[in-house]
């Protein structure tokens, strides 16, 4: 699932346009983003607080099994990296 500070309406629009089938969650006050220490203060358009890109693979017991914190927001985890990482889950 994907998490951002965007409102549900914006997210639903993105989901429809891009054809994404997974869950999108809205964290407009960045509470969860803060709890995960991922807040990028004034990093968004017009100085808005946003999440820095990050990916976590969480198992059924809610334990983090893999994570990716990019050092460059243009560079994200590649699909093949994620698929490789899911092998730790069983």
């Amino acid at each position, binding site marked *: 699932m994907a998490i951002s500070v965007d409102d549900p309406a914006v997210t639903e629009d993105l989901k429809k346009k891009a054809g994404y089938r997974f869950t999108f969650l809205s964290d407009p006050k960045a509470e969860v983003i803060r709890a995960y220490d991922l807040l990028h203060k004034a990093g968004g358009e017009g100085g808005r607080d946003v999440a820095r890109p*990050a990916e976590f693979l969480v198992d059924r017991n809610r334990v983090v099994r893999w994570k990716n914190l990019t050092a460059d927001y243009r560079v994200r985890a590649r699909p093949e990296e994620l698929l490789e990482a899911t092998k730790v889950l069983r």
Partner: protein
Amino acid sequence: MPYDRPVRRINRPLWAGLVLSVIAFISYFALFARFPVTRDVPWLTYGLFLIAAALLVAGVRRAQRRVVAVIVAAIGFAIFGGFAYVVLLFSKQIPASTGAPRVGAPAPDFTLKDSTGRAFSLASAAAAAPKGVLLVFYRGHW
């Protein structure tokens, strides 16, 4: 017709260089940034900028109106510089997130609304999943 006016020809390399600089800049964000191969290290875009730079230099050398040519070339190089700044410096200015959940530690539980407004909790989603869940934090519509 002895009256011989100097013919002012369009400086094709110069203007092609400027147009290519603009295309190189826009095409990265509009197209090449979508694909990891052309996004992560933008060799293709650098290549376009190098061709543009060569055209701009050639344009300045053959220019009849040097001042105009130098200004046009400077704009082209400034676009290249702006791109290099975004790619090499700006996009790396993100928080280190040293307090992010560690591998082997529990991911903090939360409940948020999904895009249809329904409440969604991590703990129940993880427990209901066949293997687990992938959390992707992203910058959002900006």
